[in-house]
């Protein structure tokens, strides 16, 4: 036999070491492998995330001693819910928050669609890449920096008033300001979250479908309404999950650019100084809304578009 032979001249199987025998034993046991792999992250998630959520839920039913101001754990009471239902201010704040969240979502959808469409269907690959980075860039910047930048624009004697004043729009703006400020800033903040899923959704539509629509007599408007919109709708819902839920949970922006409080502000104010059970009970409002929202989004096929 020559030296160049590739045939083994003796048994070349690796030695049966312990780790190797373990690997062989594990090989057909797929579930066990998976379990070992996921045990740590899953344990962490269940304990920390779901656990704290459960405690939050429980604490909504705890009682606050009106005299000492201390919260009594495991002293069950519906007091927090009572004050929520009876307090008109809580209803106003909730409606305001949901209203702005809806408004921000609609605004972002209207702003994002043309941008996403241009990125997905018109722009050359180089321009497209540049735009994707441009859209992502604000997400890499600190949240507070962006909100403070807006604050300087929006505050009394700020940039916006300076621009509006000569047109006699300074006064009307003052009246709108409290709500419009949050609407403007939050629409700006969450716009990328709407553009990206829409862009992905639009890019997935084969060009031939649009050509087929034109070929069958459809003008741009018909093609948009009957082909593009239905196909991109799940992506639109996916984007709206972000814009809606992020607005619903935000409390820093309303605090910094206006005096109109959001659900988050009320929760924050009550969580340490006021009534923690009330904060916990109130936090169930956005959680419930989002659970319903996500259930509807799931039915609309949004999760396949994320």
């Amino acid at each position, binding site marked *: 036999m020559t030296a160049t032979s590739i045939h083994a001249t003796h048994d070349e199987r690796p030695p049966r070491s312990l780790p190797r025998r373990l690997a062989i034993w594990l090989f057909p046991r797929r579930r066990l492998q998976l379990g070992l792999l996921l045990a740590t992250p899953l344990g962490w998630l269940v304990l920390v995330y779901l656990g704290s959520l459960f405690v939050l839920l429980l604490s909504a039913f705890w009682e606050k001693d009106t005299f000492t101001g201390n919260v009594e754990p495991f002293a069950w009471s519906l007091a927090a819910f009572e004050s929520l239902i009876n307090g008109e201010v809580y209803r106003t704040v909730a409606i305001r928050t949901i209203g702005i969240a809806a408004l921000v979502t609609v605004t972002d959808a209207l702003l994002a669609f043309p941008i996403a469409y241009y990125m997905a269907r018109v722009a050359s690959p180089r321009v497209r890449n540049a735009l994707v980075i441009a859209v992502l860039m604000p997400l890499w910047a600190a949240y507070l920096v962006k909100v403070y930048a807006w604050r300087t624009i929006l505050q009394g004697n700020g940039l916006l008033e300076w621009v509006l004043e000569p047109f006699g729009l300074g006064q009307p703006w003052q009246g709108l300001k409290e709500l419009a400020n949050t609407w403007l800033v939050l629409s700006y903040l969450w716009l990328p979250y709407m553009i990206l899923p829409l862009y992905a959704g639009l890019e997935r539509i084969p060009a031939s479908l649009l050509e087929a629509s034109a070929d069958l*007599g459809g*003008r741009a408007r018909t093609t948009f309404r009957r082909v593009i919109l239905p196909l991109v709708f799940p992506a639109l819902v996916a984007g709206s999950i972000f814009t809606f839920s992020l607005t619903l949970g935000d409390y820093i922006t309303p605090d910094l650019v206006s005096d109109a409080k959001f659900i988050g502000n009320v929760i924050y104010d009550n969580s340490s100084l006021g009534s923690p059970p009330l904060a916990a009970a109130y936090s169930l409002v956005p959680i419930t809304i989002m659970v319903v929202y996500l259930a509807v989004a799931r039915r609309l096929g949004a999760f396949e578009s994320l």
Partner: protein
Amino acid sequence: MTRSAATGDARADAMIPAVRLEHVVKRFGGEAARGRGAGTAEGAADSSAVVAVDDVSLEIGDGEFFSMLGPSGSGKTTTLRLIAGFESPTSGRVWLHGEDVTTRPPFERDVNTVFQDYALFPHMSVGDNVGYGLVIRKVPRAERLRRAGDALAMVRLSGYERRKPSQLSGGQRQRVALARALVNRPRVLLLDEPLGALDLKLREEMQLELKAIQQEVGITFIYVTHDQEEALTMSDRLAVFNRGRIEQLGSPAEIYERPATRFVAGFVGHSNLISGEAARTILGADGTFTVRPEKIHIRAPEAEPGPDEVGAAGHVREVVYLGPDTRYLVSLEAGPELVVTEQNLATSSMEALAAKGRAVQLTWKRQHNLPVAEG
């Protein structure tokens, strides 16, 4: 009635061609496409542009089954898209039934397209897909449903109205795409490699079906394919495309029997090329000649060619058994290798394969030597 007679009549009747392309050029990308290529920088500018269609002129008669055949990138699909209106030509004009439609959008052209990927709307049922064009034309609902039903019946998909395209097989989707185009009763139907994604058996079935449908509805079919067999069996006439130009235009028989260029000879069917020194030795003539594999006979090495035949000695280098035929690769003493096919009328596979390495004499009729242009 023979095919050539039928085509002759149809062409004589149609005073105005269904489609006329006049010196159509299409460039993609680069500076030239933006009209800045004029002057001294022309050469440099052109290098960045791709010329997909290079000065194509042709006329397609009303009711004709016309194929555009060529390898990928030869400009056949772009030519089809120029007729449909998805692309506008860099220069030249497109006419449909005597009207200049060069700048008209697709939705204003009386043509419909069957797309290579079918392009069925995934969110609509089969019935809604087929009815799409009719909804846009505001055809009343009752008539729309009737016509969509008729169109589906024509492609043998009655009762599939409520299915989604995703629930159909490839062949069924292809037929829905056909029904969706035909239901609008276009005067010209454009088909972009419509059978490309189907398996061989289904493709052969659909070829016959398409031809039958074309004869039934009597509209002009313009059929893009890279499959030479498909083009030869289905078309009244075909154009062979290469590098954005039409190499040859004619009936299937003309193209196959008398290929005009070396490219056509090579692309349409198997073809043997004999040129230069070998042509002088074997044929006693200068130039490039082609001879089809099935025209050549394999004889014993000592056999003498007949008075109207040419002969060439060589040996069998390779044998490929194909079932009904056997393909022999014969190395000639004069240089070139020729492909020879013979039907296995009496030979078994064992006999055929045993021919490998044997010395042979190839003979064929002088009339089957076809001179071709170097292209």
